[in-house]
């Protein structure tokens, strides 16, 4: 090749390299999904990788909904093997999976996560009820008569409930894209909302109106979307003693010197109160596995075994140390057995 031809040849080579697709059989397990399950899933992946000497599974934090979408896109090495979720799979997602050929899915519930409403340790903890939370944060609240809704007029916590301090309502919480927000709306807001008899009756007759009343958060600056970074939230609470924040229990656990959890229905958020379900705002955590990938992508079975072992998800396991609340012992045993036998989900009972 003469010198004058070298440069164009190199250029051509490079551009064609860029265009060539690189498809190869995958050696690494791919996990996507919830940012709430991410801190637990990653620990298991790391332990599994270190103990087995196999490649450590790769874990992306895409959010529960985003993970389901990727997971249900199809079968093959271009699609993830496992998706994490901080809520149960929806019926619509299940049928999406089915229509894309993801027929056999194994569902594994791994534990619980508590959602806490915390403030700075420099002031007293708030004794809240779910009704207080709903009244303080809903966009519209029930008026004097049944069936009447008014724009949320409450400015201080005392306006909501005379037993609460005379402090302006200022709540820092997750944005609507977050799974924490979904669970907060469903468990805390809806829980309080349902205590109004006529709204609870609405849930049977007009579900979308019910959801709109219960799940819509006020937008007049009392609820501040603070992004997904819970560490930042803790810092903000430390600086602003009047504010309260909404985040996962593991962050409270790690920052006990800076923030404290509010009592909900006079129950303090602790490891034990979330585990025995006396603390009302907790949600189940799941992951879903594609059965068709087991045996194709090496190591999935080993990863499942590690995740469902007592040393990981048990009461004294390392996931509990990271702030995950374990399942009751009998449920753990049954789930571990089902997972080992690769029992697939039927899709019954999904919402």
């Amino acid at each position: 090749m003469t010198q004058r031809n070298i440069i164009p040849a190199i250029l051509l080579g490079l551009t064609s390299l860029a265009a060539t697709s690189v498809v190869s059989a995958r050696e690494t397990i791919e996990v996507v999904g919830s940012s709430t399950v991410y801190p637990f899933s990653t620990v298991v992946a790391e332990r599994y990788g270190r103990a087995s000497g196999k490649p450590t599974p790769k874990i992306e934090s895409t959010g529960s909904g985003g993970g389901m979408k990727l997971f249900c896109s199809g079968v093959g090495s271009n699609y993830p093997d496992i998706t994490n979720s901080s809520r149960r799979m929806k019926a619509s997602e299940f049928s999406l999976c089915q229509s894309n050929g993801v027929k056999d899915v194994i569902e594994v519930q791994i534990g619980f996560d508590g959602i806490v409403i915390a403030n700075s340790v420099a002031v007293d903890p708030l004794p809240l009820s779910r009704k207080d939370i709903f009244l303080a944060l809903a966009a519209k609240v029930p008026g004097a008569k049944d069936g009447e809704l008014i724009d949320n007029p409450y400015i201080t916590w005392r306006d909501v409930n005379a037993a609460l301090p005379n402090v302006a309502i200022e709540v820092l919480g997750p944005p609507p894209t977050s799974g924490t927000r979904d669970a907060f709306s469903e468990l805390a807001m809806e829980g309080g909302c349902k205590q109004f008899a006529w709204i609870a009756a609405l849930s049977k007759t007009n579900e979308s109106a019910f959801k709109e009343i219960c799940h819509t958060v006020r937008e007049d600056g009392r609820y501040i979307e603070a992004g997904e970074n819970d560490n930042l939230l803790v810092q903000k609470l430390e600086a602003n003693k009047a504010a309260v924040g909404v985040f996962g229990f593991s962050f409270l656990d790690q920052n006990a010197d800076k923030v404290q959890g509010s009592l909900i229905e006079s129950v303090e958020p602790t490891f034990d109160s979330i585990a025995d379900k006396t603390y009302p705002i907790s949600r189940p955590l799941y992951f879903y596995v594609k059965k068709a990938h087991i045996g194709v992508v090496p190591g999935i079975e080993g990863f499942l075994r590690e995740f469902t072992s007592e040393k990981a998800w048990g009461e004294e396991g390392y996931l509990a140390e990271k702030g995950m609340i374990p399942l009751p012992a009998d449920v753990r045993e049954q789930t571990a057995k089902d997972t080992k036998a690769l029992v697939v989900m039927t899709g019954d009972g999904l919402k």
Partner: protein
Amino acid sequence: MNNSMTNLEKIRKSLSRRNRAEGLFRWAGRVAIFLGLMAVVVLFVDIIGKGHGAFRIAYIELDIDYDPEKIGIENLSDPQQLAGADWQALPKAALNKQFPGITSRGDKRSLYGLISNGAGYDLKDRLMANPLLLGDQERVWILTDDDIDTYYKSWLAGEPYAARLSDKQVEWIAELHEHGKIRLQFNANFFTRGDSREPEQAGIRGALVGSLFTLALTLIFSFPVGVAAAIYLEEFAPKNGWTDFIEVNINNLAAVPSIIFGLLGLAIFINFFHVPRSVPIVGGLVLTLMTLPTIIISSRAAIKSVPPSIREAALGMGASKYQMVLHHVLPLAMPGMLTGAIIGMAQALGESAPLLMIGMVAFIVDIPGGFSDPATVLPVQIFLWADSPERAFIEKTSAAIMVLLSFLIVMNASAVWLRKRLERRW
């Protein structure tokens, strides 16, 4: 005469006002520079103040007895035995010897909680490197758990943070400190390991190598293409509406938010060409799309700055246009092009938004060994650590920012150096 006198008076009168305006303007400039500098100083002081602690980490000195029975191993070359071995038993036994008489289950748990749960594997590596140690004893500095490390550092600083420790653990650390058996050492793990969920074992190496692979590909793809495009547009393209249209669009592309390139990369490279997610190949391709406009624009500026007399002389001596460009214009424009490329690379190094879409925002422990291994990059690693609940990750985050900043400074400084060193002025 009278008229011009009044003019002169007018000028004299307005002089002080104009001087005042200039003085004000100067002060405004100084204040602006001062504010800018203060912002930089605050940023650096904050990051270095938070991050310097991550370069040292607490170790405990223990007498390790490499007892084959305890580990459950006889033959170090048998992979079956290696896989089944209980390495963590080694430091646990040493802790039991250090603090005898601890029997209750809870106390044992907090005793074993003093050390990192990766300590056993570290000892395994020591043993594998020197098999003669099996059955022998050795005094080793063992990595502590991140909670212990955080507590020890805060205790040394006079503001102990003990919320995550048991009372026993606080006592034990005080005792160890008294006997000089706990100390801060250089945190080599931070530079030699990949990511981990245990802050004391987490390192920046995986992200650093991922960044290098991704940037290398970006350079290989974008530099030749960008330079070729610039040469063609500047030297060969006919001056017509089409060329103008392309020019305007290249300038527009340079201003497109980077997340758009991520979406484009997802649609083209992953969904259409089926390039695997999370690998440096796809990251490099996406960042190529992003840096190409920068490189084309700076390369064109460099070519433009070569005086026409050089071209005319070459053509006058009988060189073809191709020879004129390749032998004369390109070498003279090269320093400017390289500077542009380095600045484009520095931009790509700091980018995380486009990588979000293509799966490079992921937890990856293994250090990537090639262009098709799952990898992440430095800014993404910073994002992931900043988002982790464990408190010890706060200092890791700042330390990672320091590493990223030092790379950016080196790259920008080398761009300045190249320009000073190689640039010819006419």
